[in-house]
């Protein structure tokens, strides 16, 4: 009778470990080939560093990289949380109020197709160089995918599910928290996953143009002095930051939505 699973937590951890090992293996192979080729053709470090060069740099300058990675993460987290916190309630409002849908949504669609990083220079004029500009850009990057997916999530709820809550005499807030929101969670999470990827990209670009800290800033500064190994180390750190955020999303999804943990 029992489903063949030791415990959902362990199963999840094992699956994660397996994919992590595969990733590490793939990365090692790529790095190995790269290292071999660069050594064979004797490519100069200032043009194209070998993995051994920038990995050494990565470890020797780790405190510096970490400092900027933390700054980037703070910006990313702030912008992302802000984006989700505004997008989800707004999606609900738009879906529930017809006038908003007709009036506001076209504006939102227009804002969405507009390239967001282009607003950077304008934001600099308004807010000056600093983390605020980056937060706003991150916010804009993740706001739209979350909004759009949350809207389709709220819409996609089978209206017959409200028969259940109505026959139980549920209040609107009970219906929202116990049926509508959980029923839309898969969509909202899909939006947040896209959002976090876009945000991780946006944060670096924002820091290129308008920041005095963060990995984007560090890479830009290293570029100015043609410090190739630092740029590559920064790149790796940026990838790690993105990885951490993506993983956090997957873990959050598994924890918050245990019902989606279907065996393959």
């Amino acid at each position, binding site marked *: *009778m*029992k*489903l063949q699973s030791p415990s959902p937590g362990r199963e999840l951890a094992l699956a994660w470990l397996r994919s992590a090992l595969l990733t590490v293996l793939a990365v090692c192979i790529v790095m190995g080939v790269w290292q071999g080729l660069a050594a064979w053709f004797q490519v100069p470090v200032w043009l194209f560093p070998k993995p051994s060069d920038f990995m050494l740099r990565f470890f020797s300058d780790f405190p510096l990289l970490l400092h900027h990675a933390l700054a980037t993460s703070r910006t990313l987290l702030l912008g992302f949380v802000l984006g989700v916190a505004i997008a989800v309630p707004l999606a609900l409002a738009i879906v529930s109020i017809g006038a908003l849908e007709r009036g506001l949504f076209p504006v939102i669609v227009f804002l969405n197709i507009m390239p967001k990083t282009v607003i950077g220079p304008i934001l600099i004029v308004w807010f000056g160089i600093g983390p605020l500009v980056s937060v706003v850009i991150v916010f804009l990057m993740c706001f739209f995918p979350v909004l759009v997916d949350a809207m389709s999530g709220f819409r996609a709820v*089978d209206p*017959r*599910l409200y*028969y*259940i*809550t*109505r*026959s*139980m*005499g*549920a209040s609107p807030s*009970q219906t929202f928290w*116990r*049926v509508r929101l*959980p*029923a839309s*969670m898969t969509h909202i999470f899909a939006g947040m996953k896209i959002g976090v990827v876009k945000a991780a990209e946006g944060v670096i670009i924002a820091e290129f143009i308008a920041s005095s800290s963060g990995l984007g800033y560090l890479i830009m500064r290293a570029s100015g002095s043609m410090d190739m190994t630092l740029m590559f180390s920064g790149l790796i750190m940026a990838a790690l930051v993105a990885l951490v955020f993506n993983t956090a999303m997957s873990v959050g999804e598994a924890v918050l*939505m245990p*019902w989606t943990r*279907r065996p393959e």
Partner: protein
Amino acid sequence: MAHNSAPTTASPTIGASIVAKGLTKVYGRGSDAFHALGPIDLDIKPGEFVSLIGPSGCGKSTTMLMVSGLEPITDGVVEVDGKPLTRPISEIGIVFQDHLLLDFRTAISNVMLQQEIRRLPRAEMKERAQALFAQLGLQGAEEKYPWQLSGGMRQRVSIARALVHDPSMLIMDEPFGALDAISRTQIRHDLEMLWLEKRKTVLFITHSIEEAVGLSDRVLVMSKSPGRIVEEIAIDLPRPRPAHLGEYPEFSVYAKRIYTIFEKLGIYKF
């Protein structure tokens, strides 16, 4: 407070009466208008077990949704316990045709939604839910999600959800449709025993002549779409009724009457 708005307590209740007059449903409007039901009249006494039987698409589900206040009524009135219906009745347990379980809740917490929304005592309700699970042969399914259950199990979970808060009225839309013939006979008996004990008012929708005759005090036979009630058959058989209804010679008389109506209406062509 009106009977249909007070938070329900899980005390033993005597069934409510359901009266409908000229109940009619037209879906859509203008050129899309579709006359789905009626007019029909219903007069269900407190504690009575009434079945509605009729061909697919004749408006049975529509009837039950209007009677429970979940679908707007196009024409006519529904009175529950003598009071006109103005909002969904909450003193009710409903088994929907498509069981409508929430796929983000485990079986037991689907049932416990009743407790949460009605703010009933948790421990007591949990006990009742577990007792119902045992009674319905759902032991071991408590912590499973709907997608881990078979169609029949899902349907039984939705039956448990309809019963757990001990409502004064039960509306069941083909509740045994997804069950195999063996469980069907058993659950028919279980429902009858439960009903004998509590005497709730039951409106039971079915396609099965055997189920209708096996359970009901009265069977209402409906015509093809737009459905009307064409015949009302009082079933005068002793209770509890046996597994094999053929034991009663009267059973085949009742069954024959329903078949004859269906043949006359052109629902059966032999």
